[in-house]
């Protein structure tokens, strides 16, 4: 067990922006929410999966919506404080631990806004090892875990309790609700036991976010390239370096969707790249050829400072390196690719691991 202080929170915030793979929502907003909770209720312990008893009750806490929305319609503490006890009211179960559904983006830290007032620990794990735009795209789905019973709470005073036939139905209903509500809400979902959590989840996901954040921070101090430092420490691949020429972005159907087009710099002079995003960057197309797709992580970082730039913030003129990081092994299976690979998002193409050279 360890205690997360504000410095650790800052590293997690920076690293979770990289793990957000372009989406996941602005972790700065999440950091403010978590910091506020910690200041009001005291520090939050973080435990490894091994420290969780098999018979413990665990639930994911996550915000759902569009990253381009939550920087305006800011999340509120009230929803994160209430969401778990509302799930308990319906299920009659008391939850002993909360866990991030996704370590990418603001959901790496939203569970702290629930854990702090409740005085319970956060588990150092997640269901993605990154961020994904659909709530069924979590590792528990691969092993028969169910998204429901779950609870959805928005800032307008609406609460929804769901029991669905499949996790895809849970996504469909929750997405319809979040769209109706204005694309930002809090959820408690995927109730599971400690035993299940140990089998299903991506271990050490918060530590991974913190490590990436620290890697960037230390590279900046050492005057070395933060982009290269991240590539090296995470076995990543440089996909492109270029200047943003055009951004086509809209908040649509409950997501932030669109493309960013880049023209090449330096070694990539004369070449182009298009990033396709649906909250997260899902495919990277270089000179018209798709060279990286989900579930591998595709992320833009400012070339010099290594500042990770989410899809909702990428702007004309930014000079970015586009990097690819390998997805967690849970995803690089037939079932994993079926659930989160390119065809799942409507791209007529096969998944190709990012480290394989382009033909």
């Amino acid at each position, binding site marked *: 067990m360890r205690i997360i202080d504000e410095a650790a929170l800052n590293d997690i915030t920076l690293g979770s922006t990289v793990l957000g793979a372009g989406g996941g929502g602005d972790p700065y907003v999440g950091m403010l929410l978590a910091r506020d909770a910690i200041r009001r209720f005291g520090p939050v312990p973080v435990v490894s999966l091994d420290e969780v008893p098999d018979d413990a009750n665990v639930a994911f806490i996550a915000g759902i919506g569009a990253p381009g929305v939550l920087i305006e*319609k*800011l999340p509120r503490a009230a929803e994160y404080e209430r969401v778990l006890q509302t799930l308990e009211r319906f299920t009659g179960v008391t939850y002993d631990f909360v866990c991030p559904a996704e370590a990418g983006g603001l959901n790496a830290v939203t569970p702290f806004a629930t854990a702090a007032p409740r005085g319970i620990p956060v588990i150092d794990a997640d269901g993605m090892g990154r961020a994904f735009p659909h709530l069924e795209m979590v590792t528990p789905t691969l092993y028969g875990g169910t998204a429901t019973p779950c609870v959805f709470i928005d800032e307008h005073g609406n609460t929804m309790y769901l029991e669905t036939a499949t996790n895809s139905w849970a996504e469909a209903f929750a997405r319809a609700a979040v769209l109706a509500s*204005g694309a930002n809400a809090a959820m408690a979902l995927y109730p599971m036991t400690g035993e299940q959590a140990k089998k299903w989840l991506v271990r050490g996901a918060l530590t991974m976010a913190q490590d990436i954040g620290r890697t960037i921070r230390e590279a900046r101090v050492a005057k070395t390239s933060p982009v290269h430092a991240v590539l090296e420490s995470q076995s990543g691949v440089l996909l492109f370096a270029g200047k943003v020429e*055009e951004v086509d972005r809209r908040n649509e159907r409950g997501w932030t969707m669109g493309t960013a087009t880049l023209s090449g710099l330096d070694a990539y002079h004369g070449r182009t790249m298009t990033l396709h995003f649906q909250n997260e960057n899902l495919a990277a197309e270089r000179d018209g050829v798709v060279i990286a797709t989900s579930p591998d992580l595709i992320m833009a970082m400012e070339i010099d400072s290594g500042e990770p730039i989410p899809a909702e913030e990428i702007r004309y003129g930014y000079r970015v390196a586009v990097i690819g990081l390998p997805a967690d092994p849970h995803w690089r299976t037939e079932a994993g690719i079926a659930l989160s690979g390119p065809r799942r998002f409507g791209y007529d193409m096969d998944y190709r691991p990012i480290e394989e050279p382009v033909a």
Partner: protein
Amino acid sequence: MALRIGIDVGGTNTDAVVLDGRRVVAATKSPTTEDVTSGILSALTEVLREVEPSQVSAVFIGTTHFINAIAQARGLEPVAAVRLATPPQSLLPMIDWPDHLRDIVGDHFYVCPGGAQFDGTPLNVVDETALRDVAERIRESGRRHIALSSVFSTVNPESELLAERILLEELPGVTVTRSALVGRVGLLERENATILNAALLELAGRVIDGLEQAVASSGIHAPILLSQNDGTVMTLERARLFPIFTIASGPTNSMRGAALLTGIDDAVVVDVGGTTCDVGLLQRGFPRESTVAMSLAGVRSNFRIPDVLSFALGGGTMISGDGGTVGPESVGFRITEKALVFGGDTLTFSDIAVAAGATPMGDPTLVADLSPETVKAALAVVGARVVHAVEKAKLRADDTPVIVVGGGGPLLAVVPGLEALVIPENAGVANAVGAAFAEAGGEVDRVFNLEGRTRVEVLDLAKAEAIAKAVEAGAAPDTVRIVDAEDVPLTHLGGGSAVHVRVKAAGPFARPAATTSAATTSAATTSEGN
């Protein structure tokens, strides 16, 4: 002959240069005065000894007055921040501000129902009664400046407009700065900039009155243009309402000036003023810009501005008796009465540097008996601070040249540990040179209905229009370029085919011969930055 005048109004000095093309015809430095006007007038009088006022085609002014005010939390007015959202909010206005600024500008904020959803439909009905109550509380607090923000006012400003009307009805005579006019998407960052703008309005009014009077008294009848954050210029009328758009012009001007004076296009630029030191990176002749979140003296914004590290060090920075404490207080423009070398009673960085052998100023004998330990201790603190900032500004551990400009620049020559600095001739007036080379901008900021066109076609149309506007404002056609382009789909309008396009083009003013009329046009057509 068409000459341009560049003026830089700093916290300590007011500099003026007369330029014929890139040639510095005349340059002067005089102390910034409390009323601003007389300092500018004396600088102008000085440079106009060499040329006729009628030869001047345009006066370009840059000022760090406003960022200094924020950095020192001085001259700021208290602000009432009103946010239209869903109450109660957790991430409140000024949530991540430095305490010393919040103490002066804030803690008066109010959240009322209002705002828009992402698609422009109402988030909450604006509650008129609640707003009139808020107005009553603002009246009781005595605050005269309101910063009004609203969720997704970038998509639909109706909540802000309605609230503005109600607040002004209740509180005639107050000012209201609306966030939709100040910033882009990102409520906290836009609201921060809006609050700072409101806090600066009175100061801006006084400063701009001063600029106008000074130029008029000097006999110059040419357009006056003020540098803004993105390196283009705006009119004084606009600057009165949106001083926040000038907030980062100092670094832009000093870095552009450093490049123009040295011919070096890639360097770390250290600008030492009277109060603060700005360190930034010059890439290909232009300042490196911030990406996502940029801090304005500790306040997060999403303005597109030079990535500059500012810290409290300048010629007027106050030093403790043992030399161990350097700043952050500065005697500012009172240096010529306060500093020891000028017969004052306050130990400043200028005194330390002169005692250590820097270019003399005032009466060096007045610091002759300063204890060598004090001098050594102060120089060590200064050296460590500058080296740290230069290292931080550099992106790679290489031999990037370091150019030092600004009135206090030559003082650094005596600081141990700072070797191989490039200190150009006229280093002291680099900001004024940079200001004179501010660019002409052209902006398109409006809603387009697609009407069967693709958004790419509409964007191209807007880009061409922005370029034409920049050229009309004086930019040389062969160098004008698009510096920013953004479109926000407005799904609540026009059957889903409306899009809010913001495009900005900029380019250097054409040769002076051509700018006489063009600069006049620019005063009418250039608009907001960022």
